[in-house]
């Protein structure tokens, strides 16, 4: 597997660290159902073969956090985005819908 880092170009995966599912977001600690939400956030995963959005950290490169969309059934990498851009877009959407 090679990841096309938006900053550094295509590099082998030994330069990256894996951090897991990029779709979960940290729940609100003050919510009355916070316990159940944190359990789901920390542990429960769809884990279905096919495209999977996941966080990778370019530890031996530019130190950028990335959101990689990868088919976990084939290891094919479908897209690579900066995690910062993804988070900013998510926040903008949340504000827009609020």
């Amino acid at each position, binding site marked *: 597997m090679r990841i096309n880092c938006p900053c550094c170009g295509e590099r082998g995966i*030994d330069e990256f660290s894996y951090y897991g599912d990029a779709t979960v977001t940290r729940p609100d600690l003050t919510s009355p159902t916070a316990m159940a939400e944190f359990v*789901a956030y920390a542990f429960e995963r769809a884990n279905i073969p096919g495209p999977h959005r996941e966080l990778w950290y370019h530890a031996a490169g530019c130190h950028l956090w990335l959101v990689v969309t990868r088919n976990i059934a084939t290891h094919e990498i479908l897209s690579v985005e900066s995690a910062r851009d993804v988070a900013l877009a998510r926040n903008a959407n949340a504000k827009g819908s609020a």
Partner: protein
Amino acid sequence: MPVGDYSIFSVMKEALRGHTGWGPAWRDAEPKPAYDIVIIGGGGHGLATAYYLAKEYKAARIAVVEKGWIGGGNVGRNTTIVRSNYMLPGNIPFYELSMKLWEGLEQDINYNAMVSQRGVLNLYHSDGQRDAFARRGNSMRLHGVDCELLDADAVRKMVPFLDFENARFPVHGGLLQRRGGTVRHDAVAWGYARAADRHGVDIIQNCEVTAFRFENDHVVGIETSRGYIGAGKVGISVAGNSSRVAAMAGMKLPIESHVLQAFVTESIKPFIDGVVTFGAGHFYISQSDKGGLVFGGDLDGYNSYAQRGNMPVVEDVCEGGMALMPRIGRVRLLRSWGRHHGYVDGRQPVHRSHPHQGSLFQWRVVLRRLQGDASGGHVFRASDCTR
């Protein structure tokens, strides 16, 4: 027609007849309309569960449904090690039960699974690690499990070719469980399949589950690629496919599927007689009876259903091997393979019932551990009848 008991006499008789009298070891069963218990997944855990169930409830109609063929999954994709050298209270009895079952398994199922108690030696490389291993060893002995803490001289007598004076990771000694060892993993699948079949279990291959059928929150059957099968109870032991099968029943599990690679080299003369593990990296090795060195190391570390890994881990595992025993450097690697299995924090089996109250639906998610196959089946069987 399945053959009778295997014995020295049947082998001699067949030798004289040119081996023309051996039948299939188990029936290639067609699915019946309904069973009392259906086990999804014909791997080590599923077959062991079916076998112990059938042994316990002689009248029960039991089936194992497998989407591929018996022996084609994770049960043949591991490094064949069995051991019970765990430390924590919940772990030790579980794996020790398995170890005891392995010890009597071949007589029990009348099948040569090549159980070989050749010893599992975990090396330590520092004073701190020695303390940790002493603690683990004490914990094992408190649970009645055998183990010995060896110093460097004792290890040297067993495996003199290690790099004892390695500048970074000198070998200071090891923790040895003599009762641990290896089994022929394919034979475990075949042996359990044959034994379950002899107790009347239908083993249905090439039969993939596509959906569950519920009535009033009770599971009543499964839809499969070979038609509908009614079921009083359903057990699931499908390792890395757990999340997929769970999703069909509307459940989300605390599981991710990962890949763990294993390797085998060309055959060489007898070299390592037990299992040896490197304590400073992640590397474990034994030698098969055919002569190939069988070894493995770390998970690849990212979610995967691909049943194959990537080069960085291959390199890392081989580096671990070279740091420990440099003389394997000239041996050529024949092949490597990956198995995908469900992982949960704590790396242990998950037993779960379906959330619907009163539902006769037992859950078992099974992870990497070949050494848990026997007790996994036993405990699953037990949880089923004591539910």
